[in-house]
């Protein structure tokens, strides 16, 4: 994985200042929410496990900020930034993690296994890659109705070994669906490094047999991700079919908060830290004078307040009652 600096060639398409600030905001919000969750986990306040996307924030955000309200996203289990940029609030996230009645699954599922369909955020299920054909189905509906919306579907490197990934990508290609498959290649599937998952060096090589355009990009470079996603989204919106974008990044924690990750060499974490996406992006925004330190301070303060309030509200809120277990198995 390269550790190149941010792709700052001004000749390339650049998002405007509003979008840049939005990106920064959601990346920081992503991290701030998960930092709060990590504290809660250590305090024993999260009953379930915790999987965070620390160091991977650029990927979900740089895709989702390019979407409209009717575009659809199926984030993976670490792409919190994608949820946020599509309109999901910190409070909804905390309500969900704490299993509360007013959360998006009414306490029924955990982790990032949820969706908020008003915002066209679909839901991951635990079974890796299961969303790959499902997201293709959302894209199929868009195509059938002759709409110009698009679907983004996120998955880890690990899930690309599953049959559903193969079948889903192929269907999207054969049916020319308006979808972008984004691979968050953090180089590990639980304890298993990429080299034991596949006999090729990049997920992009694996994706190259489906007949769709394929890119590999530095996933810690928010701008590079933005720029890679842009033509892919445009292609989908224009009815030209699917694309695949691999974003190479670093999983900066264990697989979950329970996992000390002794199997990850310390050089890996060091390289990830050196290329921290938020830090890099902030530095570039400042050094290119696109935003001022005041702007950043304002964002930080806003986020702190938002997270604090959201957490407090969520912690105060009620659990569902036991018998609610029985409700809503069927739509009537």
């Amino acid at each position, binding site marked *: 994985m390269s550790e190149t600096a941010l792709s700052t060639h001004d000749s390339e398409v650049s998002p405007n200042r509003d979008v840049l600030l939005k990106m920064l905001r959601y990346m920081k919000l992503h991290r701030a929410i998960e930092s709060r969750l990590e504290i809660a986990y250590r305090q024993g306040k999260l009953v379930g496990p915790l999987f965070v996307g620390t160091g991977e924030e650029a990927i979900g955000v740089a895709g989702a900020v390019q979407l409209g309200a009717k575009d659809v996203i199926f984030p993976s289990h670490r792409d919190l930034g994608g949820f946020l940029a599509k309109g999901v609030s910190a409070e909804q996230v905390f309500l969900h993690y704490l299993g509360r009645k007013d959360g998006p699954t009414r306490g029924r599922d955990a982790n990032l296994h949820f969706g908020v369909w008003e915002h066209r955020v679909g839901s991951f299920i635990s079974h890796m890659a299961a969303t790959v054909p499902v997201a293709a189905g959302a894209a199929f509906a868009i*195509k059938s109705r002759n709409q110009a919306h698009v679907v983004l579907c996120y998955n880890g490197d690990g899930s690309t070994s599953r049959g559903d990934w193969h*079948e889903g990508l192929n269907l999207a290609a054969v049916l020319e669906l308006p979808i972008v498959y984004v691979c968050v290649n953090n180089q590990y599937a639980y304890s298993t490094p990429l080299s034991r998952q596949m006999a090729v060096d990049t997920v992009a090589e694996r994706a190259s047999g489906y007949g769709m355009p394929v890119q590999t990009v530095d996933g810690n470079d928010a701008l590079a991700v933005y720029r890679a996603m842009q033509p892919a989204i445009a292609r989908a919106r224009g009815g030209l079919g699917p694309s695949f974008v691999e974003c190479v990044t670093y999983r900066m924690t264990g697989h979950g908060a329970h996992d000390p990750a002794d199997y990850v060499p310390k050089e890996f974490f060091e390289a990830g830290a050196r290329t921290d996406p938020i830090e890099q992006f902030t530095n570039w925004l400042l050094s290119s004078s696109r935003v001022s330190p005041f702007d950043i301070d304002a964002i930080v303060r806003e986020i702190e307040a938002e997270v604090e309030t959201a957490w407090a509200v969520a912690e105060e809120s009620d659990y569902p009652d036991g018998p609610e277990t029985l409700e809503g*198995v069927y739509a009537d």
Partner: protein
Amino acid sequence: MTTYIEAIRQGLLEEMRRDPDVFLIGEDIGAFGGAFKATDGLMEEFGPLRVVDTPIAEAGFTGLSIGASMMGMRPVVEFQFSDFMSCAFDQITNFAATTHYRLGIPVPVTFRAPTGGGFNGGPFHSGCPEMYYVHTPGLKVVAPGTVYDAKGLLKASIRDDNPVIYLEHKHLYRRLKEDIPEEDYVVPLGKASVKVQGTGLTILTYGAMLHACLAALELLPDHRGAIEIIDLRTLLPFDQETILDSVKKTGKVLIVHEARRTGGIAGELTAVIADQVFEYLDAPIRRVTAPDTPVPYAPPLEDFYLPNGSDVAKVASELLAY
């Protein structure tokens, strides 16, 4: 006179005309019209975006139909044989079945699955997989045994807001012919049908086995009036009220299904009966089912494997005499 498969074709056609959100997806269903010709001519009328041919990718097109249904469409999936649903098992049982519970989003997909034996299809083209899905809350499971029900249950399934497994029995496709109404009708999900009334024994069955039970009746002319035959029609949720009312009346129960014995729906029905109306029972609850083996190919083996009218008649008269 309409055949069972033609009733299915008509049901599809009418629902597609009625609702532009209904589309069909599966293997070889387009120009070819489906392995059993259930979609014959539909591609010509509705085009390739509403009659979607796919590669061999059961998990893929099942997932695709789930995603499309989340967007408000009403996909009707054709599995070429119900045996191949096993390749989409995760998508059906974990994605389709749980989405409403987790997110409150309906998943109105109908999964058409040609099912059952009787044509020497061997172990992988003759299966009756219903119990895998009856054991999965969030799904509905229907299994029409008549031409009328084939059409009415299909329409009800397509209009239902839940994922429905629609098990169409291959053996009935062209053997069964009935006059059915011209006008639009549905058969509501969850309602059994009392096919024959009787006072001494309740036979619970569905699908092709309905006809084995009717044949058994012919073999037992002395027991006219004694045997009640109930066609369950919907297996999940099954019609507890009709079943229990009948058992209260007759006091004896025989359950007949083509699926394998162990873990078959006879067990579930027996559990409900032995719990709810135990005091009414006058005899052991018996079952006539396929044995616990794969479905074999050679005629003498498949004949042995499949329950038939005389198997049913034998146990029915034992129970009546009990």
